[in-house]
């Protein structure tokens, strides 16, 4: 497992060797902050010292933004032929998968944490509940990992980055829409309620919501972690086949 370190380093700093990282970080912050300030977010109008109106858009935003980070993970290696170089180095597939995933996740976590001026603003304007805010950040980072797991998997399936992006987007969208009330009502009309319930339990939105209210429920944490574990397992299988 000591081989993860060099792989992680190469991948993580690889984002900064091209303009990708800067374009991504800036656009992520601009979009997420302007959504909070928009009339849908009501950051100021709501009159409460919290970042709830900031985090509420994250499941939607991640749907587009995480595939942009994840699509290149394997597709690029396959296209450039460097995958042959990588897999003739003395590393196992699992080490390669973990090294890349953790690098992408760390990059996403960095993007999320760079919104700290928002938190400081709220702290300056009022008395926010810092615990709730910390829970929201934790939830956002965990959710980003789950999204990234899906994107890493779809990226391993193709050498075309566009296909990889579209597949990731579609797969992530499913996990978001599962939680919408309109979607679950339709589901309940065709399927038994218990089955529909189970399906809607897979939604990112419902699991993330608890975090934004300051509740760190082990079942939500386990949900995101196990989704990561499962997609990474499939990722190894996809690369070894």
């Amino acid at each position, binding site marked *: 497992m000591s081989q993860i370190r*060099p792989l992680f380093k190469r991948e993580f700093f690889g984002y900064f*060797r091209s303009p990708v990282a800067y374009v991504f970080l800036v656009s992520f912050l601009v979009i997420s902050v302007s959504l909070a300030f928009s009339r849908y977010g009501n950051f100021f109008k709501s009159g409460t010292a919290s970042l709830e109106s900031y985090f509420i858009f994250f499941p939607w935003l991640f749907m587009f933004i995480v595939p942009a980070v994840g699509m290149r993970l394997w597709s690029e290696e396959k296209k*450039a*032929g460097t995958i*042959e*170089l990588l897999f003739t180095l*003395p*590393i196992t597939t699992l080490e390669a998968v973990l090294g890349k995933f953790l690098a992408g996740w760390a990059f996403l976590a960095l993007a999320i944490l760079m919104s700290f001026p928002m938190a400081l603003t709220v702290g300056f304007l009022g008395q926010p509940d810092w615990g709730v805010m910390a829970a929201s950040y934790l939830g956002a980072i965990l959710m980003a990992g789950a999204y990234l797991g899906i994107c890493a998997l779809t990226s391993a399936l193709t050498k075309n980055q566009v296909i990889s992006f579209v597949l990731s987007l579609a797969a992530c969208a499913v996990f978001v829409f599962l939680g919408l009330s309109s979607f679950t009502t339709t589901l309940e009309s065709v399927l038994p309620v218990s089955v529909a319930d189970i399906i809607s339990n897979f939604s990112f939105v419902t699991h993330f919501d608890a975090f934004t209210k300051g509740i760190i429920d082990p079942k939500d944490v386990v949900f995101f972690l196990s989704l990561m574990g499962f997609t990474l397992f499939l990722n190894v299988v996809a690369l070894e086949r």
Partner: protein
Amino acid sequence: MIEVTGLVKTYGNKRAVDGISFKVNRGEILGFLGPNGAGKSTTMKMLTGFIRPDAGSATVGGIDVTKDPVAVKRQLGYLPESAPAYPEMTVEEFLSFIAEVRGFRTTTQKRERIEHVLGLTHLSSVRSQTIETLSKGYKQRVGFAQALIHNPPALILDEPTDGLDPNQKNEVRSLIKNMAAEKAVILSTHILEEVDAICTRVIIIARGQVVADETPNALRARQAGARLDEIFRTLTA
């Protein structure tokens, strides 16, 4: 050092490699010849553990590549065809990454290995250039440097002189020759003069099978007075 027995690989209904067997000892430079699509690269990819053979086995230093791929990869230096490398990294960053994965963890160890291969492959002048800005000849040398960084006992080179100018070709050949004394080297090529210049043994494959396995002199003796490319043509036609 390297032993291949009955390797088979089938893609769809096309048998790319059809029961290839050979052996390479330390001190030997094996020239791997054949027309395009004969199965040279596929054989090398199986030997390096990049793809799984459908049947047969390949061992390096007595270790089976399907049983313990990581141990085999540790002993191999491999230059894949067209020398892939991460384009956005500089030559030094790239070699430092490879050195680290190859187990050179301290800065002094890494530095020592990088300086050594930069000198061997004459890359010092472009060390801080990104790989995407390099010409083909330099890229090829980066691939070569990467394969040599851990001083492996076995070297597998897929068309190492491809895309180089005549001077660079000469340089790479003498480099291979100088190292070969204590290494087992396999190099694939379709340049016949290369065989004459450096190889101690030649294997010619056609349609996935070995059609000749002998010294360059024995190959030449097959048809007295004929040129190597004529012999090559009769064997692979």
